[in-house]
Each structure stands twice: as C-alpha cells, then as structure tokens.
C-alpha cells in the first residue's frame, strides 16, 4: 500500500504542474483585459478599431496598425507559403538524398536564428535595395517587412510541411504509383492533400510568427502610425506599436497599448480557430 500513497502523490503533483499552464493563461488573459478594457471603453470599441488617428493621449485609433499587421503577414503568406511548400516537396520527394541531407540542416539552422538577425539583414540589405530599386526616398516600407517576414517564416513552414509530407502513409504513395500515376501527379493529387492538416498547421504557425514578430519589423518598416496607401510606404504594426511606446506610456495611453495587445491576441486566436475549423472539415469528410 506504500506505493499507492506514492502513486497518488505523484498523480496530484503532475496534475498541479499541468494546472500551472492553465493558471498562466488565466493570469495573462486577466492582466491583458484588466489593463486594456479601460482604453477600449474610453475610446469606444468601434472608434478604437476603426479610428485612423493614433494621437495619444487624445485619439486612440489603431485601424492603420491593424491594416499594417494584416497586410504584412498576408503578404508574407502569399510569397512565403507557396515557396515553402514547394521547397518541402523538394526535400521530401524530389531532391536526391544527399542534397536533401545537406539542405535540411541549413534550413533547420535558419529556423533557430533569432528574428533580430533577420531584421538586421533586412535593415542592411533589403531596405537599401528597395530604396534604389523603386527609387523612393526611404526603403523602410511595408514591402521590406513583407520580404523579411516571408524569408523568416520559410524555415518554420518548410520544416513542418516536410515532416507532415513524410508522415503521409507510404501506402498512399504506393497505391498511386502502382496505378501508373507519375511522381508529380502522385505528389499533388495524393500526398499533398493527405498532408493537408499538417501543412495547414505549419502555415498557421508561420502566420502566427509573422503576426507576432516585433523587433525585426521595427527595424525595417519605418513605424509611421499612418494608414499606408501602398506597399512602398512606411507603416506600423500592432506589435511595433506596443514595443515602441510601452516603456513611456502611462494611464490611458498604457491601457491603449494593452488593448492593442488584446486585438493582437484575438487575431492569433482567430487564426488558430480557422485551423481547427479547416481540420475539422477534413476529418468530417
């Protein structure tokens, strides 16, 4: 019976540990909302979300930042995801083994490199390049952010997509090839659809990374809190807004930054919900 006490003790210990994760989410959520709600009340939800002017302490409108965050991450997805998926296909199915074994570690290395390094690269190479290429006065633009973000999400999406492509049961592949289907046909009609949920998870992770990225963005996007009219203009993301003004802000201004955080969080949660929804649809069919 001695062991039984021990067993019970550990069971509860493990449960308690597991509960700390729950507690953390609750605390973070509580603080975020506790600090952020006053600003939303003060400005009015609609005004806060749709207002184009960010003039603390008088006007708190984050529409331009929502747009900047959306556009920069969407752009990164549009550029980065197709490249990443094809690259994953390359590694998992096309590349000769020696080449894949050479490229894969390089990509894994890049997945681990701090985003500040990507930002630094963007600052010294991409920003000046955009400036000369498009002949505009300042290269710190939405476009620079999009490029940095798409490069940054490549390793994440490639790694996860490759893993899920490899996880597709080989029976599918064998079945298709045994019917005389070509390799490419098999990849696009059987393997990729079967790996869909994993690839989607990779994309969502990549998007989350793009939406949540802060320092790299601050370095290349110019941070002007105005509504951008084109990709060749400076803009400020939700994350940059928090990071730039956080240390200075007091009172309602600080609260408005927490409120920005709430918006950001809801953004990411919606993204996850989309993933769940898409996956559920698949499971259902």
């Amino acid at each position, binding site marked *: 019976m001695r062991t039984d006490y021990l067993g019970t003790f550990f069971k509860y210990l493990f449960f308690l540990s597991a509960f700390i994760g*729950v507690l953390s989410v609750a605390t973070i959520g509580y603080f975020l909302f506790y600090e952020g709600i006053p600003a939303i009340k003060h400005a009015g939800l609609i005004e806060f979300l749709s207002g184009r002017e960010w003039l603390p302490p008088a006007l708190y409108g984050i529409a331009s930042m929502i747009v900047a965050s959306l556009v920069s991450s969407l752009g990164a997805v549009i550029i980065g995801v197709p490249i990443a998926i094809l690259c994953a296909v390359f590694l998992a199915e096309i590349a000769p083994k020696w080449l894949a074994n050479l490229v894969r570690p390089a990509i894994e290395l890049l997945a681990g490199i701090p985003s500040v390094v990507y930002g630094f690269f963007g600052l010294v*190479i991409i920003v000046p390049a955009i400036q000369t290429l498009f002949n505009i006065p300042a290269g710190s633009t939405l476009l620079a952010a999009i490029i940095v973000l798409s490069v940054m999400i490549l390793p994440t999406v490639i790694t996860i997509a490759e893993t899920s492509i490899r996880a597709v049961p080989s029976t599918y592949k064998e079945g298709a090839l045994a019917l005389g289907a070509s390799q490419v046909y098999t990849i696009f009609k059987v393997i990729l659809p079967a790996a869909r949920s994993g690839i989607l998870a990779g994309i969502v992770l990549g998007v989350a990374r793009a939406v949540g990225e802060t320092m790299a963005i601050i370095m290349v996007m110019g941070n002007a809190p105005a509504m951008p009219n084109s990709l060749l203009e400076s803009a400020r993301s939700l994350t940059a807004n928090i990071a730039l003004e956080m240390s200075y802000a007091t009172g309602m201004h600080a609260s408005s930054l927490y409120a920005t955080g709430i918006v950001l969080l809801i953004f990411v949660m919606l993204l996850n919900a989309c993933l769940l929804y898409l996956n559920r649809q698949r499971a259902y069919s």
Partner: protein
Amino acid sequence: MNQAIKDKFALTAIWTCALITILFLVWMLWHILSNGLSYVSWEFVTSSYSAIGKASGIWSMIVSTIYMVVLSISIAAPLGIMTALFLTEYAKPSSNSVKVIRFCTESLAGIPSIIYGLFGMTFFVVTLGLGFSILSGALTLSILILPVIIRTTEEALLAVPQAYREAAYGLGASKIYTIWRVILPSAMPGIITAVILSTGRIIGESAPVFLTAGMVTRIPESVFDSGRTLTVHLYKLTQELFTIHEWNQAYATATVLIMLVLAINVITKIIGKQLNKANY
C-alpha cells in the same frame, strides 16, 4: 495539357523554389558570417563591454544569456515534463481536464512574444516588484517556452512503445515505477530535444527579455540583477549602428548568435541519433 508537360512544369517550379530558398538563405548567412567572422576573436568573446568605448566585448552578454537559459529551463522543464506526464500517462485523452489543459498550452503557444513582454513587465517587474532582473525575465520566458517543452515531451512520451508499458504493467510494476524506470528513460532523448529547442527560443527572444530583464551591460551577480542577453545586445546595436566599429560589433554579435544556434542544432542531431540507436 499533357500530363508529361504538366509534370515538367511542376518539377521546374519545385526546383526553382528550392533554389530561391537555398540561395537566399545562403546569401543571408554568408553576408553576416563574412562580415562578422573576421571581427570575432577570443578577445571579443571574453572581454567586457564598456560605455566609455574602451572595450566592446560581449562576455557579460554571454553570461547573462547563460543565466537566462539555465534559470528559465530549470523553472519550465520540470513543470513541462510533469504536465506532459499528466497528459499522456494519467489523464484520459477525452476528459475535460485534458481539453482545458491542452487548450491552454496551445493558447500559450499562440501568444505573440511581445504580449509576454507586456505581461512580464506588468506582472513580474511591477506588480510582484521583482524589477528589471534576470529572474523577471526567466519567469516570463519560462511561461513562453512551457508549450514547447510540453508538446515535445508529450511527443516523446507518446513515442515510447506501448509495448514497454504493457510489459512493465504485465510484470506487476506500479505506474510511477514504470514511469520512472521505463518511460522516462526511453523518452529522455526527446525530453533533451525539448530542452534544447527551448534553449534556442530563449536565446532568440528580444522584446520580452528587455522589457523584463532590462539591458544593463555588466555581468549579473545574482538573479535579481538586470542583464542584457546577446540578442537584446544585437538589437541595441542595430539601433545605434553608426560607426564602422558598431557595424562590426553587430555583425560579430550576429555571427556569435548563429554559431550558438548551429551548436545547438548539432547537439540536437547527435541526441536524435542516440534516440534512433536506442530504438533499433
């Protein structure tokens, strides 16, 4: 269109994308390393930083980074591993507590790191009064890496063949004995991978670190002191990139960071190999 032509077209697209990716990434690595390597010296790595401009070494940042890694891991790893044990070995997969815990860890994984910074600054630095300190930073980061540890450990635990559990229970072993003697040892390579992955995460973060641990350039004497990690240092430098000297420092710091990540990846690989060996 003929399938053969489609195939050719698709193959070309795949090769092109792979080439673009590889070239871009190689370009980036090469740019940083070629500019940074010549400036990385023993002197640079082991000397301290000084505002008067006498020295620009990064030793104090390396020490702060190590402090941050060790402390965060020693908080998060036990919690994460025990959580994973609860989820895989104790809880019924369909039970509500599992759903809640899983939902929460997944939410934690989805929270952008700047929000951790915001939270850590309000909660640990101000509300708990820990000030800008390694401790505040480590507490914040340990929540941030908790999902990584939980998920990776969970995967490692699930990968332990069910046959081991059956064999142990079949011999009358108790649950905790089985966990301790059979399951944890088999999952160890995976758990170590989890720890190393989170180390990478800790090293790579910037905003949540300087919002909680500050950015003082001296060697911290205790966990209650503020400190500047390598990544924060690189960020600071990029904000001050001015003289050639500062550019070189930035490239050199970036180079050191890349080499650190490389070392971490190599170690992970070696452990992964060990794992395969153990399961042959």
